[in-house]
């Protein structure tokens, strides 16, 4: 069997970046993005200090998270182990960038599709070594079949102790390092300052670690004691997901909750025929589901290809599964709304359970999708599914509270206010409780630190205090006239909460 692999010998590497530019040339890689680069980390104190290099690139993982998350098989693994991409299929969802724990994937600004090191597959397929291997002045880059004992790769693996990047991610990477310093391979071991020794550090989201996995959330330059490892050179790395994804979580919660709550009321026999639950709620669900779809498509780099997710889905991807969940939800929501508006009780009754199930799936599948984002440990929290479970009813109740005056006489009941209060308090408790508990990985801890103590703390605390506790207090103690204000605050809080999660999860360096 052939298993193509890298062996990168850092005892030889001189940090010259020949690999970087030869790759740019061979693969026509644009400014701002890289298939391979050389990180420099200074370790130690004068005069016992040395610079360590790490050539970083796709690891061609045996268990490649980018392949698993790709909704359309644009990322795929060949029988020889080479993880390649097909730009003609990619829809530009950037999920692979979140799944990769190594920062190896970027969006090509010309094709707007995902690209990365593919061993120069066009060369490999005609018996030529990858361009970087050929250019390397010091033979630090070895390429070959790790199962072939006569190859330099095979011999290097047999004769040296090798390490891999981030083994805790369990991706079985096939880029093996000889003599790499841990501080150069561990993305959190060395701190980033606001600049590098001969380059700008753009995008302060890179923050940095403090040498032992702890983080100070991007405020590293004011550290009282200089840590022993410091990033001397690195390249810019963009944050793939922003407000559109945060908003998608928010609109989706509302779309789910706005039907979930009346459907549950219907099942439990509560009155739902009034204007708020009978007319406004279904409209709200439909509107926000449509908005969800719009946001999802708008966040694609190739939005015109969005439909291919439905015709050639990659079934292991929760992005693909989610697309079908949303589609199915829409399929029951439309008749449900029609039945609700036209008072067709039998249909409402028949659809109540399907609506509940699909609304829940719609609200919750994102936890599974985020779970596939192997590069973002914060998102892998087992609590995320609970968060999302709370988000949907809270969003719905908040929206109802806000819209109740517009809906005329059907003022939100005190009991619903109490329910909302409880849910909001639970949500705040869950959030803070999660922050206080230990994190499963240094990356998650670093992200949580950014979320609660670092650059996203204003967002997060505004969400908890102003977006959960304050509306909860208003709902619990205030006059009913303040319910709309409480609803508005809670909705805003939910968006801030989602945004803080999305941004903080992407904050810690992963390469």
């Amino acid at each position, binding site marked *: 069997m052939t298993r193509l692999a890298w062996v990168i010998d850092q*005892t*030889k590497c*001189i940090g*010259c*970046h*020949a690999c970087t*530019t*030869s790759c*740019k*040339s*061979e693969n026509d890689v*644009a*400014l*701002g993005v890289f298939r391979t680069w050389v990180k420099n980390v*200074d370790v*130690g*104190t*004068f*005069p016992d*200090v*040395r*610079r*360590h*290099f790490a050539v970083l690139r796709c690891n061609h993982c045996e268990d490649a998270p980018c392949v698993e998350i790709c909704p359309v098989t644009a990322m795929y693994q060949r029988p020889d182990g080479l993880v390649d991409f097909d730009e003609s299929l990619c829809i530009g969802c950037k999920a692979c960038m979140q799944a990769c724990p190594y920062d190896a994937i970027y969006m090509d*600004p*010309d094709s707007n599709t995902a690209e990365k090191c593919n061993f120069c597959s*066009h*060369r490999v397929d*005609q*018996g*030529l*070594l990858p*361009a970087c*291997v*050929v*250019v*390397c*002045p*010091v*033979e630090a880059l*070895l*390429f*070959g079949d790790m199962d*072939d004992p*006569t*190859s*330099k*790769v095979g011999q290097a693996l047999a004769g040296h102790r090798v390490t891999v990047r981030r083994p805790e991610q369990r991706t079985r990477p096939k880029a093996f390092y000889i003599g790499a310093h841990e501080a150069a391979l561990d993305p959190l071991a060395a701190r980033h300052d*606001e*600049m590098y*020794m*001969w*380059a*700008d550090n*753009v995008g302060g989201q890179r923050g940095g670690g403090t040498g032992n996995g702890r983080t100070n959330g991007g405020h590293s*330059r004011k550290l009282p004691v*200089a840590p022993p490892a*410091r990033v*001397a050179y690195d390249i*810019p790395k963009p944050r793939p997901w922003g407000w559109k994804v945060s908003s998608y979580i928010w609109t989706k919660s509302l779309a789910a909750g706005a039907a979930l709550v009346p459907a549950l009321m219907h099942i439990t026999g509560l009155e739902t025929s009034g204007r708020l639950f009978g007319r406004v709620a279904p409209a709200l669900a439909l509107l926000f589901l449509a908005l969800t779809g719009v946001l999802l498509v708008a966040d694609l780099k190739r939005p015109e290809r969005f439909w291919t997710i439905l015709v050639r889905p990659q079934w292991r991807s929760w992005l693909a599964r989610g697309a079908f969940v949303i589609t199915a939800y829409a399929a029951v929501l439309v008749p449900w709304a029609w039945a609700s508006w036209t008072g067709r009780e039998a249909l409402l009754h028949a659809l109540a359970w399907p609506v509940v199930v699909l609304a829940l799936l719609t609200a919750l599948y994102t936890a599974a999708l985020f779970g596939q984002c192997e590069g973002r440990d914060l998102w892998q929290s087992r609590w995320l599914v609970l968060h999302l479970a709370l988000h949907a009813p809270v969003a719905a109740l908040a929206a109802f509270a806000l819209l109740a005056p517009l809906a005329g006489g059907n003022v939100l009941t005190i009991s619903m206010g109490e329910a909302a209060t409880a849910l909001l308090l639970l949500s705040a408790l869950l959030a803070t409780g999660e922050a206080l508990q230990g994190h499963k990985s240094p990356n998650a801890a670093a992200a949580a630190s950014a979320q609660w103590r670092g650059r996203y703390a204003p967002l997060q605390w505004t969400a908890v205090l102003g977006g959960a506790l304050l509306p909860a207090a208003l709902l619990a103690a205030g006059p009913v006239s303040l319910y709309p204000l409480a609803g508005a605050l809670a909705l805003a809080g939910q968006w801030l909460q989602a945004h803080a999660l999305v941004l903080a999860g992407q904050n810690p360096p992963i390469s």
Partner: protein
Amino acid sequence: MTSLHPSDDGRMQKGFAAFPPVERWNDWEEGGRRYSLVATTCFNCEAACGLLAYVDQETRTVKKFEGNPWHPGSRGRNCAKGPATLNQILDPERILYPLRRAGARGDGKWERVSWDEALDDLAGRIRRAILEKRHHAVMYHVGRPGEDGYTERVLAAWGIDGHNSHTNICSAGARAGYAFWMGMDRPSPDHANAKCILLISSHLESGHYFNPHAQRIIEAKQKGATIIVMDPRLSNTASHADQWLPTIPGSEPAVLLAIANILIRERLYDAEFVRRWVNWEEYLRDGAQGHGGTGARTFQDFERELERLYAKYTPELAEAESGVPAATIVAVAQAVAAAGSAFSAHTWRASAAGNLGGWMTARCLFFLNVLTGSVGAEGGTVPNAWTKFVPAPHARPPHPSNWNELTWPREYPLAFFEMSFLLPHFLKEGRGALDVYFTRVYNPVWTNPDGFTWIEVLRDEKLIGRHAALTPVWSETAWFADYVLPVGLGSERHDLASFETHAGSWLGFRQPVQRALKERLGEPVGDTRDVNPGEVWEENEFWIELSWRIDPDGAMGIRKHFESPYRPGEKLRIDEYYRWIFEHSVPGLPEAAKAQGLTPMEYMRRYASFDVPNPAYRRHEQDVPAEEMAQAAVDQATGRVYTATPAVPSPNIVPVPVPPPDAAGRRAVGVMVDGTARRGFPTPSGKLEFYSSTLAAWGWPELAIPTTIESHVSPRQLEPARGEFALVPTFRLPMLIHTRSGNAKWLNELAHSNPLWIATTDAQRLGVETGDLVRVSTEIGYFVVRAWVTEGMRPGSVACSHHLGRWRVADDAGTDRWSSALVRIDEQGGGKWRMRRLKGVAPWASGDPDSSRVWWQSAGVHQNLTFAVHPDPVSGAHAWHQKVRVAPAEPGDEDGDVVVDTAKSHAVYKEWLAMARPAPGPGGMRRPHWLLRPLRPTMDAYRL
């Protein structure tokens, strides 16, 4: 033939090659495209590594550059700059047509002009100057030439001493240090076979010859060699060292002499080599008394002298001078001793280019080569003339009979070489004026110290009549030219070069790849302009054309040197120039070509390189051949062997010193060693000169043996309490190359700022953190820069890379926008200048979509503007290091600010000039005739 790339032909992985086989270079399909592959040579740094251009057969454009697997120096591999040649040829900012100034100099108004108009104007002026015997009024000023001999031949043909170079802001110190030992001025370290490598340089990331040397240093390291690096800054190279010695700038000779002391004291040196090959007898006879010695005569006496002379350089003294622990110095000495003659060492710039007396760093370093017997040894350090091959062309003009005092002033009789960086001061002082001044791929306004003085002089039409800038790109200097004449990049020009990258000799042929391809396809070729973009030309054809216009009827005796060796009386074609060389002057090439059914020219067009058989080791031990001994005489006092037999012309015209003849005018050909006439070294004594009679006779007896000279930035010159530091402003970055790489987007994306490296402890003392602005004040002004607080810096010293800080004064022209900041320059009268950055690097719209994707803003700070000239009184090198005061920026200071007073810089020039010990030397000479000198004039011209 097997390619020289180590991973080719399945050597890394069965079934995989590194390159397409040469048999298929005419038609190679890859990634759905059909290519023609044409080899050439990189034109970025001086290493001249091989490149292989992939020309798309459909569009006839170059799609990429890889290495040339047949190049013996680079062996198919490159640094970051090789592939980035593609950026340079496709740069949307490049100059495609000759331009003529339309307003005042430096106003930035340009008009397109034809090559003919420019040629006629320049040729007319040069012709008049030569006819009117104003030979000094024509000057060619070159940066790194990237070629051997071509342009010197042009100037010799014109009969002028008009060569000026960048050497004295670069390698003059190292050259002097090596030359006073062995005559030849460059080391050729055999790193690949060394057991111990001592670098006062950063050859794993830069320098001559970065990629070829790095390959071989790492090879040796993998085989177990000990790597020792001296550098006050943690370079990438230092990071690979077994021993990093972060010496206080200027203390390197003290450390080297402490190592020497240990070798001597503990008898760890190669006494037999020293006895045979060092001019110890001459020292005992002529030098010892001046250095406190006695009138002893035996080698044992000399060994005692060595002990006595160097006893004071204890490891403890070296520790006090350098900051490097004595124990480390002892360990290094042991590693050096253990390597024996497999000890390779190298310095080229670094300390030698930084300090007053920097040349002594090279002299003390080579002392270690001498003591270990590693001179000329396998794994040792070989004189460069043994590993460099410069093939003779068809016609060699005579030596010029005039002496240009603007480049070779009498104050610096021992300089290596032209006092280039003093030119503006000489012109200001009224020492002369230039009628025609060529700058050729050279940017003195930016690269040299004291750039504002350069601007003052370049603007003055009375001092410089015509300034023609031959350059592939805009530069700060071209902005002050009358003509900007675009010339080709690595794949757009012919050059022939050979560099001492290892224990072997090679020729590298740079060629315009489109022209070579046309020839291959049998298509007609005019000149290189026909295949280059726009009207971009190559200098070599330009010089032929210009020479014919200077001397149209041949009456001046110039034209004949530019006539075809194949078509008598007709204009030389550039391919004929090289064809003749390949057919006549390269041993083994005609045979190698014939074996493949090719002509020598076809062979070089295909392989663009040739491994010249040329013994590298122990040439000094060669017997003087019997035919030369036939009319030989031995000087009984010195053992020098002289002969009346005329020298057999060698096909290799690599510059070598010319040791003085004997009283009868016979040339020196060898030296008696233990009763046998050996070839020896091209020095007056024929041996390695521990004692330099030249230095002694030309006013520097106290420096005639390896010793120490106090640097102008030594700790004794600094007051740390006042915030004073030694600034190391010379370090390079791995991915840039001076001002040649500003047009390469991939390289500028990787490196674009030059913050001030300052030690953590110093920064804490000053209250400075990484990213803070600091003001760095020199003798003549200051610059404002951000701080990079680092553990990788010797406390008490600061460092700033000189690779960045490019600027332009117009938004859409001038220096490339990939690399330059837009600035405003205010001239405030009385020599006071102020530069302020208006805009950093920013995206712009062009034919290359990447120009709108520029994400970095920094362009660096142009520190060289704030440096006064510091000519070393012996070597003539500019001592780059600066005594500076570092303080937090003041209110109103902005990143990139530069403030300079050129009146002060002229005063500093006068101070340093006063340290010189002018010619004449013995015999009323301007310069010792035996020393190397570009474009060596006739003996008469040497006499004052």
